[in-house]
């Protein structure tokens, strides 16, 4: 399976808008949303049947049995995460608890146990020939590279014979991004011509380079700041990274999304630009011997 990952660094650059257009253009039979903190792809790719849901367990959380508790305060003193409070009864704040097990260790009467805790939910849509894998992290759960890995695994096992897959990546530059990068064939970075967008883009490019993944860049809303657009293009030229095109700022794009359509469903300037970028991306992805990965 050839996997194309779409990343952005900074949020709000239009990553999901472009991913949904690519899914439409390629008639992709497998796709995934790895933005488990704030998944949006499902809002625009139409699903006809309800998903199969699976609970995702993160680290366990401590629980205090107040029947057994002798209120010695050992757990509270030793907790480094300020997760235990004692107004009247001792209790654990599940949002602060990191599941380290120190309280369980120090409790002299075995009143503390670590209990498995659901940290999110995996969703798998299988509509006819299409497989769509996504997830939603529960509020207050940390960023999770592992859930991202599970989303990709779920897509792969449900669509083992599919040749091509599109993955909407996680924002930022942290661990979920690294988890979404692992094993993909190519990364398309959606850059935005702003000072903060450029610094994030550079960090992503460096990370992708460490993985030896083929990387290309396109610039969204390029006309909102020509100076910065040129900066991005010069940076990419300097680094030998393929530039696949510019997408103009387009009010019609907002309208399309709000109508539940992708930007290639309607006749608009941004849609036309994305179509051109799509063909170039496919050329690069399927280029013979082009990748560093074997």
């Amino acid at each position, binding site marked *: 399976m050839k996997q194309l990952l779409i990343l952005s660094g900074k949020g709000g650059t239009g990553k999901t808008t472009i991913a949904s257009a690519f899914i439409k253009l390629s008639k992709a039979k497998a796709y995934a949303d790895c933005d488990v*903190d704030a998944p949006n792809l499902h809002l625009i790719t139409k699903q006809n049947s309800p998903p199969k849901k699976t609970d995702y367990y993160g680290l366990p959380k401590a629980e205090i049995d107040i029947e057994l508790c002798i209120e010695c305060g050992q757990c509270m003193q030793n907790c480094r995460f300020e997760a235990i409070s004692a107004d009247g009864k001792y209790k654990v704040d599940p949002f602060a608890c990191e599941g380290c097990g120190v309280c369980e260790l120090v409790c002299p009467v075995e009143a503390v146990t670590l209990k498995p805790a659901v940290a999110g939910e995996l969703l798998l849509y299988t509509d006819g020939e299409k497989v769509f894998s996504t997830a939603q992290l529960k*509020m207050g759960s940390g960023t999770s590279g592992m859930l991202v890995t599970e989303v990709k695994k779920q897509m792969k096992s449900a669509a083992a014979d599919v040749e091509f897959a599109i993955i909407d990546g996680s924002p930022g530059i942290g661990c979920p991004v690294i988890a979404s990068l692992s094993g993909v064939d190519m990364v398309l970075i959606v850059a935005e011509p702003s000072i*903060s*967008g450029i610094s994030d883009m550079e960090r992503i490019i460096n990370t992708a380079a460490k993985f030896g993944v083929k990387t290309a860049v396109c610039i969204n809303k390029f006309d909102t700041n020509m100076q910065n657009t040129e900066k991005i293009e010069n940076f990419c030229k300097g680094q030998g990274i393929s530039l696949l095109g510019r997408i103009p700022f387009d009010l019609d794009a907002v309208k399309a999304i*709000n109508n539940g359509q992708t930007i290639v469903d309607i006749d608009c300037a941004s849609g036309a630009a994305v179509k051109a970028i799509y063909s170039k991306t496919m050329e690069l992805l399927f280029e013979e011997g082009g990748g560093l990965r074997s």
Partner: protein
Amino acid sequence: MRIAVLSGKGGTGKTLVSVNLAAAAKISTYIDCDVEEPNGHLFFKPENIQEEEVHVRIPKVDGKLCNGCRKCVDFCKFNALAYIKDKLIIFEDICHSCGGCILLCPEKALTEKEKVIGKIQKGASDQVTVYTGILNTGEPSGIPIIKKLLNENKPERNKTIFIDCPPGSACIVMESIKDADYCILVAEPTLFGVHNLNMVYELVKLFNKPFGVVLNKCLDGENPSEQFCIEKNIKIIGRIPFDSALGMLNSNAEIAVRKSERYRTIFSFLLEAVKKEVHHETTSNS
């Protein structure tokens, strides 16, 4: 008064709103809690910067005392320890600093040392005091930095403080809004925007924080986020119009309030609206 600014996702204008409100307030404190990608300082360009490192405590082993019982290796829920060829190896970037291995070691072979995970910068930009938290790449958690940022400013209740939160609704956001008197949720006028707004809406409700919404990038025509607010009976405290000149200033990391009278007026109005809300909340709660 401590005002936290948050959004379900990056790129909605959280930094735009918090930076410009802090600048419109003239004498204020701006705290950037988005420690993985702090951008506020790019706008404020603060001067006279003082830096302070942020540490966590991690274990170190005395090889002479370690007898290889592996109790620490088995205990560590994060798998930060391994015992290879009669030697204990500690993976510092995996360690969550819980201190369990040190408590557990029967030979007292483990002690703690301090490790730098990032830093706090304090500087001045006109009359705005700018705090920036910066997490070193690869560190597991920015929470110790946020705790330090917020504790440092805790005694100063009477100051006007704006907290630029990390995006999303993870535990790191909870830490950032814990002591806030009021939360501003910034939302975009799209279907995606509504979904992301709903996430932070659930969060502030859970923490029982008074809050209001600022609608950013408003266009003519329908605004799904506005409809959401009306349906849920959420107070809309302000609207920032979509405007390419504002977008241009923002993408060049300029503070709009300091560049144009027009935006100074927009954000001053917004600031007054926020103050009124906070005042209303504090008096109705007392």
